[in-house]
């Protein structure tokens, strides 16, 4: 065999081949690479002895440590539950009044509730719980179904217009679209409702419409929203006399609500959360409003 060319820079011989000008040196594999290779292999083989690793027919090698991710995760879940048990059990079983009176326990409710709210409620009601069009603000004192922990818990468990068999049901009929009211009546009653929270709107020019609207309201709306338009929490009918609105309080939106009706949706959380979680959230939401200045 002919002596191969020697590379002047490294002093190594080439392999004697050339491909379109490319040559290769015959450098041996560096010792470090081999050591590293052996080391990773030893580590891998050792690891196979300790944990589940190789299939044998319908089973597999279980490993000397006896660990398995299924049993590990089950143990960790129980561990986590027992860590939460001291306060979670109390929240799940004690009356709301005594929990509210225990400032230490309420601290925990606020921090756990904040995470639960962020993961389950914030998508609709907003991270700050202030809501947006169609999704009520939960930080104010204006409640569709009541703001006590007990009523909030009911809303969470049953939902509103939800799939739960005992769901809370609330529907604003489509007075315009379903021809229960004339177009002018819709405009009149909207003017009346708008004027309730905007006294300045009532002028000589508009007073006739507002008065006409008052009559429409008495016959078509008062049954649910009450004679003074302050709503009824028992049936989820909102207060129309204040300046807080679920869908918006400008004239256009009010007309749209009267014309097309409204039917909001709040899912049922009954089977998606534990009792402790539902009651934590009930307290958290109640507390949000109570803490507002």
């Amino acid at each position: 065999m002919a002596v191969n060319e020697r590379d002047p820079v490294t002093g190594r011989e080439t392999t004697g081949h050339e491909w379109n000008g490319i040559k290769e040196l015959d450098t041996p594999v560096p010792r470090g690479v081999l050591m590293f290779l052996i080391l990773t292999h030893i580590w891998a083989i050792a690891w196979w002895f300790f944990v589940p690793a190789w299939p044998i027919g319908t089973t597999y090698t279980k490993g000397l440590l006896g660990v398995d991710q299924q049993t590990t995760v089950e143990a960790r879940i129980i561990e986590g539950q027992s860590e939460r048990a001291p306060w979670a059990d109390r929240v799940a079983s004690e009356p709301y009044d005594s929990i509210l009176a225990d400032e230490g326990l309420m601290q925990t409710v606020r921090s756990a509730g904040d995470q639960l709210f962020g993961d389950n409620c914030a998508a609709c009601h907003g991270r700050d719980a202030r809501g947006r069009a169609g999704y009520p603000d939960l930080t104010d004192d204006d409640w569709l179904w009541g703001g006590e922990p007990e009523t909030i818990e009911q809303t969470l468990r049953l939902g509103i217009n939800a799939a739960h068999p005992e769901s809370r049901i609330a529907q604003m009929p489509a007075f315009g679209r379903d021809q229960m009211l004339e177009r002018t009546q819709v405009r009149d009653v909207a003017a009346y409702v708008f004027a309730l929270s905007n006294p300045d709107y009532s002028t000589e020019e508009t007073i006739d419409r507002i008065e006409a609207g008052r009559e429409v309201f008495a016959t078509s709306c008062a049954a649910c929203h009450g004679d003074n338009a302050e709503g009824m929490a028992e049936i989820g009918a909102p207060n129309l006399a204040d300046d807080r609105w679920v869908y918006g309080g400008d004239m256009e939106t009010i007309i749209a609500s009267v014309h097309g009706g409204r039917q909001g949706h709040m899912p049922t959380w009954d089977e998606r959360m534990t009792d402790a979680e539902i009651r934590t959230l009930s307290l958290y939401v109640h507390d949000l409003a109570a803490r507002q200045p």
Partner: protein
Amino acid sequence: MNATDRMIGRLTSGERQAALILCGLTALSGAALGLAGRNDVVGWHGLLMLLFAGGFGFLLMTRLDMAEPTEDRGASYYDDPIKAGIVLAMAWAVFGMFMGVWVAAQLAWPDLHFDNGWSTFGRLRPTHTTGVIFGFGGNALIATSFHVVQRTSRARLAGQVSPWFVLLGYNLFCLLAVTGYLLGITQSKEYAEAEWYADLWLVVVWVTYFVLYLRTIARRREPHIYVANWYFMAFIVVVAILHIVNNLALPISWGHAKSYTIWPGVQDAMVQWWYGHNAVAFFLTAGFLGMLYYYLPVRAQRPIFSYRLSILSFWGITFFYMWAGSHHLHYTALPHWVQTLGMTFSVMLLVPSWASAGNALLTLNGAWHRVRDDATLRFMMAAAVFYGLSTFEGSFLAIRPVNALSHYTDWTVGHVHAGALGWVALITFGSLYTLVPTLWKRERMYSAALVEVHFWLSIAGTLIYVFAMWNSGIIQGLMWRTYTEDGALAYSFVDSLVAMYPYYIARAFGGLLFLIGAVVGCYNMWMTVRAVPQATSRTGDQPVAAAVPGE
């Protein structure tokens, strides 16, 4: 005479007829698909196939009576499909990277979907991944593999029509895939989103590629097969296997885009990530190592550091990667023992990976002054460094307890981009800057300064991107696992999202720099072909017909 005339003029009339028949058959398949799927979105894809094949058929038909070619095929290489492949690769690069910047911006500013269905994140994201991996990467691999196999085998490609069928057929697949996502067609398998008919088409194209490559190597006039060709062969063979097995599916009818995979439950997940990880291994690694093994020593004008190290790393990479896919499914319904195997093989894989990176960097010994002066060679040097970094990171992330922190976070995204930007794209740009002047027989690239600008834009973009994702990924992972002393989670998911905001902006900015670099590269290549004089005394390739020593 324009480029189309020249390229078609190099085919004999018999070859032109054969190509025309192929176009006709493809157009017919398109028409059949369009007809069967006229009540489904797949009808549009039938039409797309018809127009695509019909367009090339028209080009051929109007040139059927051109004169027969006069070149001596025995004494020349076939470079036309390579040139077209480079142009397509760069076009896909700009498209795919633009889509990447857009989706990155959507993560910071969600309103950037402008209320259209087609431009929502879920549809745009696969146009980015398919655009850069298959469009840019795939075309670059086809082009460079055609170049490398001819030069290192001293044999012309074993066919005149089949290279075109491979290149154009492959681009038809990419078009079907990308337009399908925008239309809402997807089989929801990551990096394998294209539906059954596009997958079937790719099988035909890929098998043709495989046969063409084998036949060319069989013609070689060199006694030994060069390392780059081992890698290209591994890339072609394994991608064929992965693609076929992962895409086994039953369409609900011949006239619908929708299909159901034959793999049930966790086995589907395992097959998908066996595919997914080996797509990284054999598409994004083996193929591009083939590129590195040719263009780096050519540009550095140095022999490969160690042939023995090449052997060790080639067989290490091809063997170990096959086992590693299950590390994508740590702590899932996949049995524990499969996860252990995935993790241990991933760690063993580090040695051959680093051996490859080391072999590349040690090849530069004696040429470091060139690395300093020549941005093209520096592209390839940086690529080897990023290859080493991201393979280390990959093995590290495959360790179960580490994965418990990193999984589902942006750390994974950062890792992928350290590989995709730092390794795959940089080696491609370095290779193309070497290849373009050679192939078009120009003295040099149009502007060395612009190559330099591209290099620094790419490096800055990659580093900004990767650092942003490391930070955000680790923050996410920590926020998700932090408990209060009461044993409740300390943060909600939304809290972690809010914390990501500055990093998402930084990421989009890094990506934008990288995109600008690619546009600069396109301009530079375009001007090289347009404005740089023909080389007069360039040291050319060894000709096909030169005497072989010892023959």
